[in-house]
């Protein structure tokens, strides 16, 4: 007796979907590998460049150390072999396995992204609902203008202004970093310390996202309001508040969820600018630096994890659609 949720159709869906996902991730990895090897120069050259001086012997030693003296097909075969055994390889530049490096940076990235996206989704959606319900009135104009302003202002500029005002000027919050290492806090003091460091970067990043959610939510709400079933709801005498929350909001959530999926997918890519300005030890900076340093193993590893997350989140979003709107069905 098969469990009712595990009927043939579902089984086929999951098998197909998972195979599809694995192929996509593998395909991305292959394309990345060759794309990145098109970049001029290699890691040995970058290291020698940074060292300020070099000899051919020194560079040959580095290339041997990095495995760069092997022909490209051999390097590719090694990389592929590693991948199929779930080994992301070794970053010679950092002298650490790629997985360990990603693991070191992951908590900081997750913290920053969760805080900023959470803030953006909640505050942005709320503002969007308020704007839609007051469409054309002062509140709407104010919210829309603010959202546009945050959206149009470059992230690094917002970040720097926040630093100048709240750190240097008012001295309320730290300039950057994730902890006050000098103080050596532990326990709750440490949590409070990290939270204080988190405020400005999360706000900077959140303000940009917030604008997107506000505008998306407002537009979706307005669109759904014109639908027939809303007229029906009004006709059967429901209270406006209930209509707004149960009928309009739920249906308006679809585009927001789509957007959320896209953004969560880019979590591992991190937020290079914000991480740079606030010296936040996240993955975005690691990937960005790896690119300039031609640390291809590391960069490929981050990109691979990133693509895996995108694929998984896509699946999650698809599943969420069916919950939000029962008319949508999963199909192969």
């Amino acid at each position: 007796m098969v469990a009712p949720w595990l009927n043939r159709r579902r089984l086929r869906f999951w098998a197909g979907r998972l195979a599809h996902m694995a192929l996509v991730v593998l395909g991305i990895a292959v394309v990345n590998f060759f794309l990145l090897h098109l970049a001029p120069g290699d890691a040995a050259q970058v290291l020698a460049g940074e060292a300020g001086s070099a000899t051919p012997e020194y560079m040959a030693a580095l290339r041997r150390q990095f495995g760069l003296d092997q022909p490209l097909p051999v390097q590719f075969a090694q990389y592929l072999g590693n991948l199929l055994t779930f080994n992301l390889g070794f970053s010679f530049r950092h002298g650490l396995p790629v997985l360990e490096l990603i693991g070191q940076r992951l908590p900081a990235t997750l913290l920053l992204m969760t805080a900023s996206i959470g803030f953006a989704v909640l505050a942005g959606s709320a503002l969007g609902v308020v704007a839609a319900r007051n469409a054309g009135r002062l509140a709407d104009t104010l919210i829309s203008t603010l959202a546009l302003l945050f959206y149009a202002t470059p992230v690094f500029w917002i970040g720097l202004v926040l630093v100048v005002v709240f750190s240097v000027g008012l001295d309320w919050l730290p300039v950057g970093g994730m902890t006050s290492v000098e103080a050596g806090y532990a326990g709750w003091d440490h949590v409070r310390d990290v939270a204080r460091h988190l405020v400005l970067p999360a706000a900077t990043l959140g303000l940009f996202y917030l604008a997107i959610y506000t505008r998306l939510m407002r537009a979706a709400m307005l669109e759904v309001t014109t639908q027939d079933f809303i007229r029906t709801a009004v006709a059967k005498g429901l209270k406006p508040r209930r209509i707004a929350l149960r009928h309009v909001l739920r249906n308006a959530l679809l585009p927001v969820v789509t957007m959320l999926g896209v953004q969560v997918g880019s979590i591992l890519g991190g937020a290079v600018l914000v991480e740079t300005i606030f010296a936040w030890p996240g993955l975005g900076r690691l990937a960005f630096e790896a690119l300039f340093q031609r640390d291809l193993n590391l960069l490929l590893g981050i990109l691979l994890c990133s693509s895996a997350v995108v694929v998984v989140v896509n699946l999650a979003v698809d599943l969420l659609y069916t919950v939000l709107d029962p008319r949508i069905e999963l199909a192969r």
Partner: protein
Amino acid sequence: MTSNASRSLLLRAAALAAGAAALLGGTALAQSQTQAPRDGGTLTAIVQPEPVTLTSAINTAAPTGFISGNVFDGLVDYDLDLNPRPALAERWEVAPDGLSITFFLRKGVTWHDGHPFTSADVKWTLENVWKTIHPRNQATFGRVTRVETPDDLTVILRLSEPSLAILSSVNSNGAQVLPKHLYEGTDVLNNPHNLKPVGTGAFVFKEWSKGNHLILERNPNYWDKGKPHLDRVVFKVIPDAAARAAALEKGDVQYAVFSPVPLKDAERLGKLPGLKIETRGYEWISPWLFFDLNVDNQYLKDVRVRRAIAHAIDRKAISNIVWYGFAKPAISPVPSTLPAFHDASVPQYEFDVRKAEALLDEAGYKRGADGVRFALTHDFIPYGDDYKRTGEYLKQALKRVGIEVTIRSQDTAAFTKRVYGDRDFDISSAWFAAFSDPQVGVTRAYWSGWVGKNTPWTNGSGYRNPEVDALIAQAQGQARQEDRIATFKRIQQIVQTDLPSIPLAELKFFSVHAANLKDVVTHGDQIYGSLKDAWFDKAASN
């Protein structure tokens, strides 16, 4: 060089007479004689970019040296006039024929893990690291044929030819001694201790949180009694220049080196009561900025065109305007900060647009109907805005004489491959460290053996002159310093006549430090040296 040895003996005698080794460092600066250093406190400094490894013996990059110099000691360090001072070596002797150098090591020095430091460490590192892996020292120590260690505290280098450059690069950056007991028999480049170094220096490695911070702590068993004064040094990674300025201004960070903030911010920060701008401590590096002219280019192969470009450039404007005064016009590739070697009588190419135009006309490149003679590309060294602005200045300056310049930008890997590998460029810019002996830092820009070898920071112009090659080889093996100086002056005369590259400016890198942080610069190699003399006046800031 016997004079150096006797000077070091004198210094040592003076220190012994004073009865306190601590005074040895203190006498370097007058200001510390007036105030007794106060112990304690945590110094927070900026390291940018984040180092790759923490041992300078295998990587000579600036951030590595900045931290590594605190964990390791050199055989010597250099005072502000670049005279060697005793460190791990208490004294040294150069044989009259120049064919051997003897270092007498300090007694009772231990590595941070408790192992004694001995002559075997020096011998092993010289044979297995300096002569093989070290990016710069293969040339410097190439003439060492044998290393003898008659006892634990004596190291004798036997040379095939005299090699006076050795004594100018045996500080902890130029020739870092690694602990043999931790490195012998391992793959040196991959040794885990490169990331958690064990040295003999004033500070002990504590922790490195990648992308975040790095912590060193006071070495309680340091051989230089009474030092270091600081309890802890925290190095923070702050990638954004504006954020670095904010952190310094707020006092979160008290020390940052290698021109850590944009030049236009430096002046403003220097006026704040709590901060000081310091340009000393870079003497050992002696950086100079130049344009490399690709002599294989159809226009630039004509020396008249190269001289015309030199005449079209106002080097004063580059120093004072483009570099905000943090530079001094250069006339020779050997900077004036190496007074013994610098030749002030080389051919000078004063700023004279008319002369430049006349030379271009003479070379046969008349202005076309649109006023343009020919077009060139410029690739600037991708180390930031200052070099880009220098390139923009070049574009303007050459436009005045009818040469159209297209500026191209790329990242470091692409740049070094383009210039030193593919040679696919017309004019490039770069800065080199001359170091305290031109053999170490300057000759690489002119020796023809480097052309097209894809080795960064070597001969970019493609200059090939057998006479210069011969002189470079000759200077390396000369036993008398006067003879070497004469050879280096001859080289300067020739290359400034042929002009494959145009020296623009002697760069003045600067450090920013808190005003209450004292004695942070006591050495000519300070940025690659130790913070053992530094101390906080009044309460340490946190």
